[in-house]
């Protein structure tokens, strides 16, 4: 037990770093849900697409993952826009279960397309720019992980600011709160939906190159993130960006600390249990009422 105790600060820091990444992935999901009222089961697969684009950039052209950002972000955002036009927009008025099934189908297609093209091999993409490990007393921190978490936090807060303080953000919130009233006030609701979906899913194009240096890459990595993002989003209240940030930290720390004190994959049972309990007993999440 004493040796576990001495590892606790390290686990705590690892959890916070991981939690920041969960937070940004969840922020995208919560934005698309908050605005479009659609739960996107293919959310994490956009992250996988971004990771494999980074992988192509790194192996075929020898770019550093961070350099890949230049083309990964626009490509993923473009893919999101295309998805919205072709799949999401036509189902917006359908029954809820049809939307679930369409995004599930998209997830199957994306995941297995990547599996078919790149095989199930697990890859890593080391970065030359951020390859150092910082040491604070007994705690080790990878610079890449630190960078990714700092950027994630900034982007989360920037999204919050964007929705609160800019004209476009105001329009998006109007479309989210009452699309008919927004329509009558001259807000182009369809366009706002498109923009919200592009930001929500396209932000994963920003996350992918940032986590590529310290996260493994495989066709199924995105669906793990989707599940975790659902948990974070529900914990931090659906549609609440600050909630997603706090929820991300909580789940990251819980996962890391539970992983330290248990064997095997029992720590995942803990996070799923939190998820189920929140849904059953506090479905409005920790932060309740406040929507976009």
């Amino acid at each position, binding site marked *: 037990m004493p040796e576990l105790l001495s590892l606790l600060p390290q686990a705590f820091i690892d959890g916070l770093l991981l939690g920041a990444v969960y937070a940004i992935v969840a922020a995208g999901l919560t934005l698309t849900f908050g605005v479009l009222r659609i739960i996107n089961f293919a959310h994490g697969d956009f992250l996988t697409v971004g990771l494999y684009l980074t992988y192509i950039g790194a192996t075929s052209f020898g770019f550093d993952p961070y350099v890949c950002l230049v083309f990964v972000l626009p490509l993923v955002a473009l893919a999101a826009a295309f998805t919205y036009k072709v799949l999401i927009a036509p189902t917006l008025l359908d029954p809820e279960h049809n939307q679930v099934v369409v995004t599930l189908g998209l997830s199957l297609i994306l995941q297995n397309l990547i*599996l078919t093209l790149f095989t199930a091999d697990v890859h890593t993409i080391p970065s030359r720019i951020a390859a150092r490990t910082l040491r604070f007393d007994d705690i080790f921190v990878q610079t890449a992980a630190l960078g990714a978490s700092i950027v994630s936090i900034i982007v989360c807060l920037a999204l919050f600011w964007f929705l609160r303080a800019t004209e476009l953000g105001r329009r998006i919130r109007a479309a989210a709160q009452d699309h008919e009233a927004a329509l009558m006030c001259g807000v182009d609701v369809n366009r706002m939906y498109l923009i919200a979906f592009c930001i929500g899913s396209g932000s994963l194009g920003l996350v992918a190159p940032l986590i590529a240096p310290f996260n493994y890459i495989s066709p199924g990595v995105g669906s793990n993130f989707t599940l975790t993002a659902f948990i974070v989003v529900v914990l931090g209240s659906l549609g609440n960006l600050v909630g997603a940030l706090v929820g991300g930290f909580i789940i990251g720390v819980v996962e890391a600390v539970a992983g330290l004190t248990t064997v095997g994959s029992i720590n995942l049972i803990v996070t799923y249990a939190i*998820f189920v309990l929140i*849904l059953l007993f506090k479905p409005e999440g920790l932060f309740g009422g406040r929507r976009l």
Partner: protein
Amino acid sequence: MKLVCNLLIGAIVAGGIVTVLPVYGQHIFILVALYGSLALAWNVLGGMTGQISLGHAIFVGAGAYVATALYLQLGVNPWIGFVCATLVGGALGGSLGYIVFRRQLSGVFFALVTLAIAEMARHAVSNISGLGAANGLAIPPQHGLANFQFSKTGFCYAALALLLVVSLAVIAIQRSRLGYVFRSIRENERAAAAVGIDVIQGKVIAAALSGALAALTGPFYANYVLFIDPESMLGIPLSIDALLFAFVGGLGSLFGPLLGAAVLVPLTELLRGLFSSRFAGIHLIAYGVVLIVVIRVAPQGLWGLMADLIARRAK
């Protein structure tokens, strides 16, 4: 009565076809019957009652693990294992339904809870050494009726019998008062409550029946393959399969889910046979495409599409 007669005739014809099928064809036949049974069971909760579950693997896995563990640890006969599996599946479905539906969870949230609970079960079983942990459990081959282990042809008839049992159960449910209760809940919960239907009780019963029927397929699969592991018996792909066949076949119809399995399973095997060496996930890409096309083009599913065609022909 006409429906039951047609079903029996269909079963006899299928039984005749089995005898002339090659071994590989018989394997596909068994898979169609198994997945068809699972999709029919899923449809009791998903199609009839309108509660979309993303965690039906938990019932299949519970059935498979209960029967197999009883057989391996205590020497309980697999036939009794089937009974135990059904009871456990029903109890599990009922208690999960009771917990979840009493808290008014529905729609996407119900789907997410079922997904999370099935994943919890998968991780739990993966860490219990008495259940073989992540390595799974192997059943020693011992042919014989008593051990529920047959030849390929024998398994075909057993699968047909299983499918027949599930089909008759589904017809019985559909025609009973419960069937009307389920459909009224699906169409409009508030209206159902207003005419005096106990909505929560109805959903709980639907979950229990659906779980019990789904649990039947678990021990069958275990005895057919002689090996079970958490990944294949409790994993998300199995839950998605159940939902997929039902959606593609047609959610609103009684036997659409079976049609979905009958079309998609052979397609899967064909694609796997053609491409598996080079392209591993190609059949799942096809699943995704078929699913989206069906939802967009024919929301009533293949069954609805067929019924439309027949009606037009009759005119």
